[in-house]
């Protein structure tokens, strides 16, 4: 089964940005960013694109599927 993974935390850390700062920039709460980073929440296309825009990258670069061995 494919799992949605994200590089959000790495991108955020590379820009020395706090979860709250990113949350405010894209118009969501910090809890939402925490869940996104933990892979506990799949964002809407709009939110994924807004986040990608903040980091100047693409949605595919930030969010990707990874095959897991568990069935």
């Amino acid at each position, binding site marked *: 089964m494919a799992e949605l993974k994200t590089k959000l935390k790495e991108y955020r850390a590379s820009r020395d940005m706090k979860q709250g700062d990113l949350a405010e920039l894209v118009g969501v709460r910090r*809890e939402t960013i925490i869940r996104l980073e933990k892979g506990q*929440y799949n*964002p809407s296309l709009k939110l994924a694109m807004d986040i990608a825009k903040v980091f100047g990258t693409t949605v595919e670069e930030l969010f990707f599927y990874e095959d897991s061995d568990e069935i």
Partner: protein
Amino acid sequence: MKENRTTNNKGIVTNEKIMKLQKRLNENNLTRAEKHDLTEELNWEKYRADPRPSMALRKFKFMDGLIYLGDTLIFGFMGITDNTKNGIDHKGFNAAGIVMCVIIALLIALVFVYLHKHSKYKIEPMDELANRNMNKAQHAAFLCLVGIGFAFALIKGLLNATGVTTIKNNTIIDLLATTLFIYDFFANMIFVYLEGKDVSANEEEDE
């Protein structure tokens, strides 16, 4: 953003972007989805422009839930006392009256705390995760309400299978209000639980 901030004649914080969004929101040619998106954007713009300290949505919903619990207790108590065989006077100076006074006093105190917090802090607007959790919570609250209804009917039926249940006219409104408030209480508390599940709201920021 801050340099553009100003207050309108009602003392409400606003800025150019907020005014533009409000103007756009008043246009008639918007679809429902566009109105929803614009309202969300406007709420976040107002939140960003507001200089007050922030309060987590989860805490706010918890207080909301407590107020609904207080309302449930008041209307539930009134309904039960009014609907007993000879009616218990909850307006006089007796045990029922004292209990009623205590519940009302607690609720008034809670409303004061709620209003104080509401004016002191800006509340986080709903985002897509909050909307999803609230939908889940409302669904679960509805199921809880149906479950309680069935359990109540079952117990009543088992205890008094041949009896007749009557509801006095003046308690119908109490029953309806109790049902609505208990639904809102469940919805808010389940939302608080869902928001706190797996993720701690106080999780530390990365160093």
